[in-house]
């Protein structure tokens, strides 16, 4: 990668324009992704059998089926149905939840904060646990600490979250009565879901931090910093860690989106009133307006997270900032 010479104020205004263009193209991409995801799910739902039967509870009467089919517009050609769906979805109208008899999108959005709260706490736990483990394993390479840290990481990657969740419930709720088994009533409720949600990501990030820090420790600027006689914690904390951050942030960005997937399982185990549990229940109940609204909210959230991650790069590594602008 070429480091360009920094220009005067003129270049910075050019950067601003380029940034705006970048931002707009990213927003366009997001819209496209969301639109295509919804289209795919729409057709999958429609093509997978009689949609009316999917949309209705099992114990329905025959005349009700026909009436509902007419009411929901399933007698129209597929193209008409699709156009109507797109037109409504563009206005944020995904129809009414069949189970809760309420606006599907509002229902989904009401559950979003609980998921974001859990996800953010788990993400915090991930970084607080994984980065020190990764850095210590790298700087104390080959010691017992390194083996313990990386052993835990390899195990963390292999242990499925839902099994870890069950085992934690067994030990801390059933046997020790220390923690509640589920719900969202107070800080104690956060402990186990966060550990479960964070375990897999923390493991991967710890391993990546270790290898990234090991790579950076070989760079000349680290040698220079040490030669200047800087304290070791400054060499590691400032010179090494910030320069090791790019791959870590990349992975964290990809994984943060996957946290939404992990939340589906974690929320189900711990009866967490979030988006993931709602989605699973909607799928089980064949409540497809809610499924479509959830797909919408999840793909928007996911792409927004990735956008934030991309913007973080610019802050971490000015080289990518100039390159994107050029």
């Amino acid at each position, binding site marked *: 990668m070429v480091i360009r010479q920094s220009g005067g104020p003129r270049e910075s205004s050019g950067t601003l324009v380029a940034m705006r263009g970048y931002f707009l193209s990213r927003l366009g991409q997001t819209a496209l992704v969301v639109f295509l*995801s919804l289209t795919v799910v729409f057709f999958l739902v429609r093509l997978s059998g009689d949609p009316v039967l999917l949309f209705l509870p099992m114990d329905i009467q025959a005349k009700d089926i026909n009436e509902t089919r007419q009411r929901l517009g399933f007698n129209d050609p597929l193209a008409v149905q699709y156009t109507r769906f797109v037109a409504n979805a563009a206005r944020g109208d995904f129809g009414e939840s069949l189970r809760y008899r309420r606006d599907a999108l509002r229902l989904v959005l009401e559950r979003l904060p609980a998921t974001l709260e859990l996800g953010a706490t788990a993400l915090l736990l991930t970084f607080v646990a994984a980065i020190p483990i990764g850095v210590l394993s790298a700087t104390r390479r080959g010691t017992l600490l390194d083996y313990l840290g990386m052993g835990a990481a390899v195990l963390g990657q292999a242990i499925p979250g839902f099994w870890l969740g069950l085992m934690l419930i067994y030990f801390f709720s059933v046997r020790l009565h220390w923690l509640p088994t589920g719900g969202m009533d107070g800080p104690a409720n956060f402990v186990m879901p966060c550990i479960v949600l964070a375990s897999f990501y923390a493991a991967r990030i710890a391993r990546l931090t270790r290898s990234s820090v090991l790579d950076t420790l070989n760079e000349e600027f680290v040698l220079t910093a040490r030669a200047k006689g800087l304290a070791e914690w400054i060499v590691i904390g400032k010179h090494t860690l910030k320069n090791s951050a790019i791959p870590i942030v990349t992975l964290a960005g990809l994984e943060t*989106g996957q946290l939404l997937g992990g939340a589906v399982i974690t929320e189900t185990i711990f009866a967490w009133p979030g988006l993931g549990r709602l989605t699973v229940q909607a*799928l*089980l109940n064949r409540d497809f307006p809610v499924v479509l609204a959830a797909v919408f909210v999840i793909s928007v959230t996911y792409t927004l997270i990735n956008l934030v991650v991309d913007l973080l790069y610019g802050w971490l590594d000015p080289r990518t900032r100039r390159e994107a602008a050029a």
Partner: protein
Amino acid sequence: MSAAFFRRNVLGFLGLALAALAVIAAVGAPVLSPHDPVKGDFSQGLKPPGTPGHLLGTDQLGRDTLSRVLYGARVALFIGICTVLLTALVGGLLGLLAGFFGGWPGNALMRLCDVQLSFPFILLALTINAIVGLGLRNIIVSLAAAGWVVYARVVRGEVLSVKQRDYVQAAAALGTGRPRILFRHVLPNVAPSIIIVASLQFSQFIVAEAAISFLGFGVQPPTPAWGSMLSESRDFLYVAWWLAAFPGAALALTALGVNLVGDWLRDILDPKFRV
């Protein structure tokens, strides 16, 4: 085999041992199982591990946990192998074609991958599975439909770089036909990355299948799948810990074994280390 070689690859050997254990359990389930995995005996319900005749205890219907865990290895490995083969074939072939011929179909394919990757894998597989239906075949189809993009991406990238190498250019200059170049010169050089991705995906698929079955989709009871066993065990967590502990441990150890083998393969096959 020298001691140093063994020490350097100790994790790889551990992985191989764990994976071999899973294969032995899967292949040998009919011989190794002390009982029928689906036939219950109500008089023997919820016996703890160590009960004579039931080494790992029994579940609420009196079915032998050990037998079910052993048969569960069959289900898990069968699904894992089928899904990996299917995704490697479909994703690998599409990636190969997209990278080799390029053009707008290749670009369109990559955009499709982008869209699919902008949705969490497990949620995608779960949604597809909930829509196409339950059962063994459909869970394989769902996982493959959600997982093929990784191959397409990786293989396309590799092909783009291999295509520029001298031996490929030389073969083309000698008048070798395009299919021959593709399958004789490009494919063998892309194969290591396909193998690496496959080994890394394998455990992901097994765990994802278990997670989906755990949530009530995928493989249904009474088929002895680890995920559905864990799902059933939730109702008995207060009285029978072994119903949750053993299928989950089997799943974790299998995933660990496959992961370690995957890491090992990557170290051996990765061009960076091959020099």
